[in-house]
């Protein structure tokens, strides 16, 4: 049997965790309850954070988008946050079904730290800083330092994810994800791509094709040189294709029951090519 503290404020959550550092944080429960029901986890102490108002908010500060850990997928898709971080909204739309999107949170996706977590490539491409708080006070780190392995984070006992702070670049954002059917899928391969016209960079991160969430840094640097930033002209097919190949080189996929390494590598190249073309096309911004 486990004891459950339902925190009503950030202070209450912090306090409960300080008191019981080995407690498990429960947000929407869409990952945690599945694991508990399958007997994979049996937490003795639980701190519920779904009703912590400070975690449920988002705002813009210093041209950064600060998304509380308790913001749900539905909120990412349907509020003005969707305009502030379009790729996050696009990724949110691909998650599960409406009930899952109503309950599941950004903090939970981070806490689970699965390579197939759909918001994670978006966070990586938007240079996210993950803000955590705990016995050692507040810590901030990039996604690379937060996700340290398959389903492994650098969270310390008693720490709570508070928010993710994201860039707000001027260019287009794209999230694309492949699954074995057309909705409600765990990713076989996913990709986020962001164009930053002020910084004249393209940033691209991958999901479900490596143990972590790799950024395709070599491909990013290469393509930034190919783009005619001044004119805003689209990219030509040759550049887009080569970009795809270079992005694929950043992946290190495996064979598993969901797909094969060969397909994943191939798919990532196709996704990168398409994302780049969309990001630099003259048409309307992509839908969510």
């Amino acid at each position, binding site marked *: 049997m486990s004891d459950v503290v339902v925190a009503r404020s950030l202070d209450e959550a912090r306090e409960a965790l300080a008191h019981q550092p080995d407690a498990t944080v429960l947000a929407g429960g869409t990952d945690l309850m599945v694991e508990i029901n399958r007997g994979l986890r049996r937490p003795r102490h639980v701190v519920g954070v779904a009703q912590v108002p400070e975690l449920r908010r988002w705002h813009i500060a210093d041209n950064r988008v600060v998304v509380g850990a308790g913001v749900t997928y539905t909120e990412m898709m349907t509020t003005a946050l969707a305009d502030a971080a379009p790729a996050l909204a696009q990724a949110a739309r691909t998650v599960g079904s409406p009930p899952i999107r109503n309950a599941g949170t950004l903090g939970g996706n981070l806490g689970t730290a699965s390579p197939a977590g759909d918001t994670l490539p978006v966070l990586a491409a938007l240079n996210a800083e993950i803000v955590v708080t705990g016995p050692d006070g507040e810590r901030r780190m990039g996604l690379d330092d937060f996700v340290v392995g398959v389903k492994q984070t650098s969270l310390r006992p008693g720490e709570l994810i508070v928010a993710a702070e994201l860039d707000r670049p001027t260019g287009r954002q794209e999230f694309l994800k*492949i*699954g074995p059917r*057309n909705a409600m899928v765990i990713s076989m391969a996913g990709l986020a791509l962001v164009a930053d016209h002020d910084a004249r960079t393209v940033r691209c991160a991958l999901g479900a094709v490596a143990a972590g969430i790799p950024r395709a840094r070599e491909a990013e640097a290469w393509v930034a040189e190919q783009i005619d930033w001044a004119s805003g002209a689209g990219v030509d097919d040759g550049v887009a294709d080569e970009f795809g190949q270079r992005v694929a080189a950043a992946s290190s996929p495996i064979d598993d029951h*969901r797909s094969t390494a060969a397909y994943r590598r191939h*798919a990532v190249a196709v996704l990168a090519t*398409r994302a780049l073309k969309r990001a630099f096309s003259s048409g309307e911004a992509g839908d969510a």
Partner: protein
Amino acid sequence: MTSGPVVTAEPVMTTAAANTAAAGSAGAAGADTIVDAGTRGVGADVGRPDGVPKVQGRFAFSSDLWADDFLWGHTLRSPHASANIRGIDIGPALATAGVHAVLLADDVPGCITYGLEHGDQPALANGQVRYVGEPVALVAADHPDVARRAAEAIVVDYEVTDPLIDAEAAPDAAPIHPDGNVIRELIIRHGDLDSSGEVTVEGIYEVGMQDQAFMGPESGLALPDEDGGVELFVSTQWLHVDREQVAACLGIDEEKVRITLAGVGGAFGAREDLSLQVHLCMLALHTGKPVKMVYSRDESFYGHVHRHPAKMWYRHHADRDGRLVKVEARIVLDGGAYASSSGAVIANASCFAAGPYKVPAAHIVGLAVRTNNPPCGAMRGFGAVQTCFAHESQMDKLAAALGMDPVELRLINALDSGDRLITGQVITGTFPVAEVIRQCAGAPVPDIPPSDDRRDLPGGSGRTTNAADTVRGTGFAVGFKNLMFSEGYDDYSSAACRVADGVATVTCACAEVGQGFVTLAQQIARTELGVDEVILAPAQTATIGSAGSSSASRQTWMSGGAVQAACRAVRVQILADVAADWGVSPDGLVLRDGLVVSLDGQQEALLAQITAGTGYEADVEYHHAPTEALDENGQGNAHVSFACAAHRVVADVDPDLGLVRIRDITTAQDVGRILNPTQAVGQIEGGTAQGVGLALMEEIVLDNGIVRNASFTDYVIPTTLDMPDVTIAAWVEEPEPNAPYGAKGIGEPPTISSSAAVAAAVRAATGLPLPRIPIRPADIALARNEVQQ
């Protein structure tokens, strides 16, 4: 349910009053042409009595059963595909607080094995395990978690051996079971086997292992009875065959095993074999307490049989005009560790291997083999699904080789009433294959412009694909199978009807598994007796004889026929009495609108008055025309009746990523006669969706006998973004002469041709051969790459 379990949710509503709301729309197609049934009889669009409670969450499924002071059962399963059991230590489990019993193979009181065709499957592993998930031990405890943890505490000493996982190697491999590795070999030799065609096409085709993926996992409740018997509430497809097997394993008389159908959450073949029936009864008898079990979702994937994976080699011979000359095939089905219904499945796969076509000569070798993979058995379409994919792929290949339109090729070869099957049997019933093809192929192809709405594009919500990345293809397929059991089996059904105080009560043990028998039985009674209120008694073994299985597209015909016959027998009694009373001939009397009426309009009386008090009743057994066994050449009149369907599929494919979005599915089906239009649509839509699933995504992924995707996270079935609305171009109504009301079973045909049509559409779009279903994204995207390089 008079005694025993208290069901917290609302039980199945069975009185007519329950569906007045849904019965507003009067009967459409067929109603007028059958019997004057009012608006709620046969042919009318009557709503399901259990429909509203199901949508509102008030219907009690077998997992909702409850009794005072009951225990929870749990099953310990083998983690190995093949191992000898050197010893089992149940000490720690038994010592767990709250545990009431831990049972092993030695505790099976009667016969240790059971099975639908051969009793080759142990109720609990007996010294050996032959597949991952095989039940090894049972626990009963006062809480489900306690039972689960106690099961984990059981120490089984396994000596792991190499599993046999390659079906094609099975016949020559060392036997993994005393009955050997060949479950059945069926050879069909028909016509002149030396004949050959001017044009031949050849291919090797493969079908993956599909799961029935029902929503309601295996569950039930057993209560010990004072007489040493047991009462079992369970979701199943065939109460009486469960009883026979359970009683044998328990070593008690069949009468002492009283089975009642509990609310079934889907079946599709997966509930034909026993799962937890024997286990529940063993625990209840051992502990003297009610015991309940509910499989978890992942356990459910181990708890029932699956659709056989198939490898099929085919060679078709035709003349220059496209007339089929000969079909050769070798079909290997992987039956997994135990026989289940593999023998009948391979018979269907073989008998219908050439499709619904005139084939003068055929040489078919059908083989169902035993391996250490999960057992396979019945699933909607039952063998015909696998071979339909192969024969329809071959027909397209042949059309291409001949430079002929694929629909035209099918039309010129279409079977008809009076033609011969490759088993030598002459089709005596209706079989409008050509009309079904014409109706389906002739329906206008909807003009679906490429859409920029992600939901209409391959990849759907994943935003992978722009309209410009897609190519479109159209595919066509037709398939058929038998209705009812075959090869000499007398799968009769029993029903009773009682009319008292003007109300009809129908009793039948037909398992309502979602197909709508509860609706139909009421419609039939209304039509036959002119009553409105019809009560359907619970389906139980104690009150009535066997109804046979809710499978093989047979219950509308068989149990519908039994109900019709029982009602008619009662009608005859009533009319005879009234005729005697009025001094007229019974031929001049009818029952309608709750009245007995003389056709000359001179006399009428209230049925309620005439049947006041004890009323009238009749009890019947309904049999279909007998069939024969197949001889050593696979020839014989083995089947009762046949039904076919055709599908045309329009699919948009993103070839670079291998993603598919089906844009239109049009179908036509040989239905005999429609008895309830909405229920018919439901069968056709649901069956088609299951075929779409097999074509594009549904597969149990095995790795050395271990299921890698035993969850709905990874065993995916179509969503609304994968499955478009189904356009029913026509149901072809040619009444079947011997069937009640002329109606054919309609549950399976939609699943047979839909997979093949989807595959054909994807081939048409991509130009790839795609010899395997499900077609995975990599099968398209990487094959294309190889072709390009």
